[in-house]
């Protein structure tokens, strides 16, 4: 089985979010970048397939040279090779077109992505990618088993889960559940050494137009101070929630 794992390179979850250039650009000053947390679950599941059922793993990202540390980390975790499509990833449609182009020429059986990137929270690349490739697609995937050409996937739905039956080639947008937290992989020394020798190819982006453009960022208004209520004054809290906040 040939697996492609799509990696997005994002600010760490604890990052302070600030903007520069008149709020038109994200301020990456002092920001630590990581593999998108959902993509880590995807990669760990890919490793499971590789070890248990035999598979090759390619990791791919659309981004500038600055994203390469995330690809190297994925190689250190155990991916076999990496591809960077050399373009600024500003629009989900654009990214999906780029990924589709490479996927089409290389022919993968399974494409694993995260449910969403934690920076722009677009949740759009996986569905678009599957549509451009005309592959089967399962969103919000929390479990998958593959036997020959058939896949059984579990999808999270509002208030529960649903079991789906589908076949390869397949795009899965995953999250926790694909593997458990404790099964996430951390690169070890040997992996890091080996990763240096693994192929990381850089390919040029294809000509395609962006469909959206970021104009400006805005930070939420400062919150007013929290109103403290004494632990002995539960009636006071109920009164505030009823008469002031009007939520009960």
């Amino acid at each position: 089985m040939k697996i492609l794992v799509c990696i997005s390179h994002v600010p760490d979850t604890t990052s302070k979010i600030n903007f520069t250039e008149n709020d038109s650009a994200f301020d990456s000053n002092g920001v630590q970048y990581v593999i998108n947390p959902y993509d880590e679950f995807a990669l760990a599941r890919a490793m499971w397939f590789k070890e248990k059922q035999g598979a090759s793993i390619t990791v791919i990202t659309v981004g500038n040279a600055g994203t390469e540390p995330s690809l190297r980390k994925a190689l250190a975790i155990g991916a076999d090779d990496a591809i960077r499509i050399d373009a600024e990833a500003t629009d989900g449609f654009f990214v999906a077109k780029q990924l589709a182009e490479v996927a089409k020429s290389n022919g993968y059986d399974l494409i694993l992505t995260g449910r969403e990137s934690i920076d722009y929270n677009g949740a759009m690349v996986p569905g678009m990618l599957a549509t451009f490739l005309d592959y089967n697609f399962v969103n919000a995937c929390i479990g998958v088993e593959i036997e020959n050409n058939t896949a059984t996937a579990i999808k999270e739905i509002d208030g529960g889960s649903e079991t789906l039956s589908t076949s390869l080639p397949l795009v899965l947008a995953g999250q926790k559940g694909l593997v458990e937290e404790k099964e996430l992989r951390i690169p070890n020394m040997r992996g890091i050494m080996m990763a240096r020798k693994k192929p990381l190819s850089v390919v040029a982006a294809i000509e395609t137009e962006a469909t959206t453009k970021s104009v400006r960022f805005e930070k939420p208004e400062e919150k007013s101070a929290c109103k403290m209520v004494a632990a002995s004054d539960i009636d006071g809290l109920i009164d505030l929630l009823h008469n002031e906040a009007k939520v009960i």
Partner: protein
Amino acid sequence: MSVLVFAEASEGKFKKAALEVVSYGKKIAEQLGTELVALTINASNASELASYGAQKIIKVTQDNQESFDAKCTATTIKEVALKEAADVVIIDSSSNGLYVAPIVAAQLNAGYASNVIDVPSSTQPFTVKRKAFSNKAFNHTEISTAVKVIGLAKNSFGIVENSTTATEEDFTSTATASGVSSTALNKASGQVTIADADVVVSGGRGLKGPENWGLIEDLAEVLGAATACSKPVSDLGWRPHAEHVGQTGKPVASNLYIAIGISGAIQHLAGINASKVKVVINTDPEAPFFKAADYGIVGDAFEVVPQLIEKLKVFKANN
């Protein structure tokens, strides 16, 4: 020209999110000076949408769309968008909405903005405000394609009654079942889900163990609320993963969020910031959550919550 909204019915009935997208679509149709068209699939009371501003209601009633199939639904939306020459297609952020919207956008070659929280600030260029960086900021995004797909964030616009007379029309989609089929549904019926709830009661590690969750459940029951938890609580197996909220869990956009024994780590706050009113109960006055909360009680959950439950019962009986 038209604005098309997909008003999703669940077991024939419209959820709040469906009525919200219709209300929102009405506003955009007014901005653009066009008609609001609502698409329904196997809805039993499609006419209800006229009360929220739909001027034309397109009804698809097909057996092969009885159970939700994302690609099939997306293709149906695309067909109707083309037939109605829609400039804007609006889809809600339910789990089905999030599944369908990118497929629709790709099929229509349309730019897609998800997590949108307001009507366009400008229609020429078409610019919308959306949540980004897990609720830590907003992004103003311009969609440059002829057709625009908008994913409306939950509880961001609200339901607005706007009675109109609507024409109704039946439509038969050519969409056929995709290669993904449902074999089992595992859903507790009658339970309020985090996605739909007006009130969410959430517990953290401060509750010490799963045996104490009766407190959370009882409080949720008085309030008609959904229950949720912090990430370590689900990691420890005290509660199911589906209840984990936060940046890497479920997003919460309820009217009221009550956090009990949760410290308020940045990753937790990122997922619940969109809730309108936040109440925190925590023994530690220095807990970071108080900085993000609207109302706070410094106190022991095991003393405060039972009292809150009893007093709320009395309050509910009188109100």
